[in-house]
């Protein structure tokens, strides 16, 4: 399973991450900023609680009637001339995509950011076959250049990298010679990738929400790479988690409004693109062929259980941007492509307790995530349910030790509290103010800092990828 991004154990991952000062700094700064932007956007819209409730209701209704809506969606995609493949497992999904690539004799594939394609290990399949795949989202491209370094955030995957590090990556891997100015580097990537878009045979995207009634898929982006990926190549393959669907455009309005504000604090992102089937016969650009791959990969096992609420998730990352544990251990420490509160609940469900048993403990139960989740998922309640379930099954992870480490570390370095961006600090102090720290720390062990670790970025995805084969 490619959800897993590291073969180190949780304790080791935390230790490595915590010695990475660059990461801690960028994460703390970014988290504060995103938290603030989300709050401003929610306040500006007004009636935010009503919006959230509508979001929750829409998602619950879809989950309760998921077979019906997927049937309607697939009927309509077919009617529009598209192909729908239902994939029970990750392998079924990648096998189908492999078959299309072979049929089309495609050599180059451009990809727009998509969590579910990460989850099913799409790139590994493509690379195994010797085809070229180009990640076109800037953040994903940075990580791809960095030998598939693991993402640390679901919206801003290269959040843990500083501009200086990014410059080095581009210099080493893409022949970049400019400064570490973000605008200059962005322009470089724009020029660099333009010909990839023009040469690509296939464009692969995710799907933020499908619309059952029209057979459409929607993509929520800012960069324009998803538009290029669905305008220039002859074939478009969209991959969606099976629960990412709404009944009609009326509900799409609500969930998109919630998503854009919660994820990036924008009223709408730069591009909301609704794609309905392949291009019309009289058009000359856009894909001639459209495939929709609907992925289960463990999701149906969550339906009908006490964890069903997690399937409402719209992947906005607001919970991640609010989480004090994430702030202090960083995204890569979770060892999953889904970090933070959402990841701590979802990763063990999709990937099993063997690999992710510690994650439900990477939480202080402060419940800040409840308050920001646009679809009102009771994340920390679900984490507790994981702990109960594991106790029932006599699974004993490194247990509370992990969470304890977070607070030992922070306590030993008060500078982390002080230099934190205002908002983040407010979360943190809020946490302590509620009385004591919400977990029992036990005797505080002084944390000794070893500065000369060989690989401060954590294990690269490539090493991990090699090891798992």
């Amino acid at each position, binding site marked *: 399973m490619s959800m897993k991004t590291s073969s180190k154990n949780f304790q080791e991952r935390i230790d490595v991450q915590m010695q990475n000062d660059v990461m801690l700094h960028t994460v703390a700064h970014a988290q504060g900023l995103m938290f603030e932007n989300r709050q401003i956007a929610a306040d500006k819209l007004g009636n935010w609680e009503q919006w959230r*409730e509508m979001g929750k*209701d829409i998602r619950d209704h879809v989950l309760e009637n998921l077979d*019906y809506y997927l049937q309607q969606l697939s009927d309509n995609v077919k009617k529009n001339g598209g192909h729908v493949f239902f994939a029970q497992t990750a392998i079924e999904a990648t096998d189908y995509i492999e078959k299309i690539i072979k049929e089309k004799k495609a050599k180059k594939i451009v990809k727009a950011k998509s969590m579910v394609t990460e989850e099913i290990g799409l790139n590994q399949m493509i690379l195994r076959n010797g085809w070229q795949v180009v990640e076109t989202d800037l953040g994903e491209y940075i990580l791809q250049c960095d030998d598939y370094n693991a993402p640390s955030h679901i919206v801003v995957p290269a959040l843990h990298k500083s501009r200086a590090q990014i410059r080095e990556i581009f210099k080493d891997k893409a022949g970049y010679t400019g400064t570490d100015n973000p605008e200059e580097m*962005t322009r470089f990537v724009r020029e660099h990738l333009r010909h990839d878009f023009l040469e690509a045979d296939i464009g692969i995207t995710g799907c933020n929400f499908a619309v059952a009634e*029209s057979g459409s898929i929607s993509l929520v982006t800012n*960069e324009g790479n998803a538009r290029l990926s669905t305008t220039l190549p002859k074939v478009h393959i969209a991959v969606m988690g*099976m629960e990412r669907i709404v009944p009609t455009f009326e509900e799409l309005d609500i969930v998109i409004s919630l998503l854009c504000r919660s994820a990036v604090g924008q*009223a709408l992102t730069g591009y909301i693109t609704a794609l309905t089937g392949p291009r019309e*016969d009289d058009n000359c650009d856009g894909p001639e062929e459209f495939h929709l791959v609907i992925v289960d990969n463990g999701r149906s096992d969550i*339906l009908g259980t006490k964890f069903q609420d997690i399937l409402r998730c719209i992947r906005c990352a607001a919970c991640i941007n609010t989480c004090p544990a994430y702030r202090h251990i960083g995204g890569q420490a979770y060892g999953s492509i889904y970090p933070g509160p959402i990841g701590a609940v979802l990763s063990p469900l999709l990937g099993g307790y063997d690999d992710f048993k510690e994650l439900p403990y990477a939480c202080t139960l402060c419940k800040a995530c409840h308050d920001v989740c646009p679809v009102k998922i009771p994340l920390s309640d679900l984490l507790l349910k994981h702990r109960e379930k594991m106790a029932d099954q006599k699974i004993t992870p490194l247990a509370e030790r992990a969470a304890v480490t977070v607070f030992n570390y922070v306590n030993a370095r008060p500078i982390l509290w002080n230099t934190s961006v205002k908002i983040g600090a407010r979360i943190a102090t809020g946490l302590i103010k509620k009385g004591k720290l919400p977990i029992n720390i036990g005797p505080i062990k002084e944390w000794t800092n070893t500065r000369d670790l060989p690989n401060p970025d954590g294990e690269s995805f490539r090493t991990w990828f090699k090891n798992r084969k």
Partner: protein
Amino acid sequence: MLENKTTKVSGSIYNRDKFLNNIAEKLGRNRKYKNVIRPTLKYSCHWEVMADFTQDQLKDELIKFTKETLGMQTLCIKKAQLAETLRTLCAHYCAKADVHGNTLFSADKRLLAMLNPQDLVNAKHSVHIWDASAGYKANIKFAEQANVGVVFAEYALAESGTVVLYNSALQGRAISLLPEASIFIVLKSSLLPRMTQATRILNEKIKTGERIPSCINFISGPSSTADIELIKVVGAHGPIYATYVIIDDM
């Protein structure tokens, strides 16, 4: 209105029944094939945004939002001023092209009814009009070389500074995508408060069984990214510059 032909290719569905039966089973019931009524939304706060605004107020909001939040310009002009306005804008956006500037126009009939793009041609500026019959290669080549793309927007949304584009044979996807600068023309009578009204219109189309355009874009300003240290950079893979031109048709 735009007329979109449907696609000839016939679609297909694989592995559906097993997949959906499993879902129904996990939900602890039989498959649902019909009679699922989508619940009415509990609140109407989405309809309340700018509900009582006149077209002029919507226009003012749009101008303000694009300026303050998106850092771009929205003009409001009379139809008769369109050619002159575009001449100025194109010259501005082409100024970077040392020798010769290129502008790619949508062939949307509503746009071409308002001006003749050839009027904008001069020694330093060429104009091309999207022509689907010339095929993918020729049109994409023009789009790639063009400094500016001019398109006609169905609607504009005041709340988010958004223009709504429908693709068609006359208005390809690449026009507002490949050139460095985009100019969006929208009628004042087509200004809407927010996404809610635009999606309602789509819903109504869909209910009549009409296939909606294969590519609908809600575009808010030029492309951007914040993937490096969350610093906003305007101009990522899509256009770097954008201007909205509202035609006062009321």
